């Protein structure tokens, strides 16, 4: 019996050389009429559902922009909420078409998980959240402290590196779900909670009883470029996902906004804007999309700057400064390759 199964497994290994279909993601999306987008189960500012099941956040806006560019309708998104542990298999297996769930771009993930990162929607760094009353001013003074972490993230490893480098002997308490980790932190089980600084801001504002009772320590202990990812093996879909993001960033650079995009498309004589809006060159055709794909995307969610301001910027509860996420010509890192 066992031998039979092993025999079949070996046969399977040989038979697995049949050609795989590549470039089919776009077709299947058009056929299904919706983009399946993997999002966070609930992280204010990034992806969060209200009680009616309406999703919002910067990660969600990217999904909407993608749906608008591909299908012409930002509401044609199927949101699949995923835990950190579920996200990669969900993408690998085709349960979702794109993973937009503040995921850190690392070499290991790029090279061994069978996924491709599209770009960076948010430049972040890992930090620590501590109660004000603990009087901790610097992460380096937390010797021997217990720290609550969510499993399945780059966070655990970063913290270990930092703890070793500074001889801090930090003790992690690792939870499967973020609610459990923050719950344990707020009950006082841990001296600190660690995740990306944006996530800390989100947790502090949404979940702390009084946000002023908790402080994010100044040290950022890692680089966390967060961005969407797609499945490997479909370069056409990879290109669409990549250039939708670049398009949103470049739109901001050239001042194309949700409000003025129609006017710009109709009247602008700036050659760059005419290219982005599909007025002069048909970049959409090269990607397998409509000519005005970028116009639809910007009309749906605004440009990158508008996405940032609406969801996480200084005017929102999260109150995150633009910082590294400003345009390259304004002192930030957001630099999109040109659409041409």
């Amino acid at each position, binding site marked *: 019996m066992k031998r039979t199964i092993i025999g079949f497994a070996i046969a399977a290994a040989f038979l697995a050389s049949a050609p795989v279909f590549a470039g089919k993601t776009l077709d299947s999306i058009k056929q299904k009429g919706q983009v399946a987008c993997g999002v966070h189960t609930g992280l204010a500012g990034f992806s969060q559902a209200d*009680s009616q*099941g309406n999703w919002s956040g910067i990660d969600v806006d990217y999904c909407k922009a993608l749906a608008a560019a591909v299908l012409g309708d930002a509401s044609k998104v199927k949101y699949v909420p995923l*835990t950190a542990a579920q996200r990669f298999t969900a993408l690998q297996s*085709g*349960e979702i078409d794109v993973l937009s769930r503040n995921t850190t771009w690392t070499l290991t993930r790029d090279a061994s998980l069978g996924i491709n990162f599209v770009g960076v929607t948010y430049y972040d760094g890992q930090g620590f959240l501590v109660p004000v009353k603990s009087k901790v001013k610097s992460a380096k003074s937390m010797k021997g402290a217990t720290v609550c972490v969510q499993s399945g993230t780059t966070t655990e490893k970063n913290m270990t590196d930092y703890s070793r480098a500074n001889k801090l002997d930090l003790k992690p308490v690792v939870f499967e*779900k973020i*609610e459990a980790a923050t*719950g344990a932190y707020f009950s006082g089980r841990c001296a600190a909670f660690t995740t990306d600084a944006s996530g800390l801001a989100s947790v502090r504002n949404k*979940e702390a009883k009084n946000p002023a009772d908790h402080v994010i320590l100044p040290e950022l202990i890692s680089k966390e470029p967060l961005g969407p990812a797609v499945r490997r093996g479909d370069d056409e879909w990879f290109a669409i996902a990549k250039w939708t993001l670049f398009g949103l960033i470049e739109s901001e650079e050239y001042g194309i906004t949700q409000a003025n995009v129609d006017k710009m498309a109709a009247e602008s004589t700036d050659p760059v804007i005419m290219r982005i809006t599909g007025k002069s060159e048909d970049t959409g055709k090269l990607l397998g999309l409509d000519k005005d794909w970028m116009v639809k995307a910007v009309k749906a969610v605004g440009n990158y700057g508008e996405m940032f301001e609406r969801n996480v910027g200084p005017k929102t509860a999260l109150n995150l400064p633009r910082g590294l996420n400003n345009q390259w010509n304004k002192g930030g890192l957001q630099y999109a390759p040109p659409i041409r």
Partner: protein
Amino acid sequence: MKRRSWIRKNLFADWKSGSVTVFFLLVALVYVPRLLDWALFGAVFAPNVDACQAARGTGACWGVIVEKWRLIIFGRYPFDEQWRPALATVLLLGLLFASCIRRFWSAWLAPAWVIVWALFFWLMRGGAGLTPTPSDLWGGLPLTIMLSTIAIALAFPLSIFVALGRRSRLPAIRTICTVYIELIRGVPLISILFMASFLFPLFMPVGKSPDVLLRVIAGLTLFWAAYLAEIVRGGLQAIPKGHLEAADSLGLTYWQAQRKVVLPQALAIVVPAMVNNFIAIFKDTSLVTIVSLYELTGSLGLALNSDANWRPFKIEGYLFIAAVYFTFCFAMSRYSLWIEKQVAHDR
């Protein structure tokens, strides 16, 4: 007079028994008033955060239940549509209740199951006149009851085949069934759920993987079928060999003999053990919260973790859903006792 002798016999039979009674009475005298104070007299029943905060440590805050009960019971299901899961659950519970009572055991029970399930899914999913509600918004008690009922309804027939297979004279079939049962019974349910939730999509062609709810149901079914099969096997073993030989000599085929002679007897024997296992199934659906389906346990976390004002009163929340689980499980265990008596009576 009678009462006094009962007290003497049961509470003060000898000095040991007497001192135990006195000890418990003293403990009760100290702690029961405190407990009552906390749970009733000092408790806050109004959904008022400030009053709850003020009573912290001295009185329970049942206001948290008043405030959040809809979120706890129905999870993320859209607020305005919550009458649908409520109605669906009531229908399903009615069906289950009817199926448990002898008077209703008749031919129309089968179509009733089909109709009620169809109604249940129509109400939950929407469509055909109702707003469509995707399955990832289902949660709370309806999900708990749905998952356990489907798991039971599917695992039970499967388990009969597996149990027969394990007792089969055909070596290959016997091996397959034995390996299946022992493998499944050797691993924790959560590993099966991880497999259904994280791994299974990898086993299927790209984009062909079913919805996570379906995968979890399949996982639960396969898991419990192995346990139920062992119970059924116990019943099969209790059937005297002579019955099978008699069936054989009447010229019945294997399946005829099983269906008409063996199974009716074997299943009657194992009914109480079966119902006890149903309790376990019901309780263990709470594990699906670990793979992010928000059934009752998960929806409590959902309701309270994200709300800083009410989060400190999670203990009251846990006590509330513990009471819900207890009600269902206790009712089932009473039913199991009753049916045990019925079975004993019938013999």
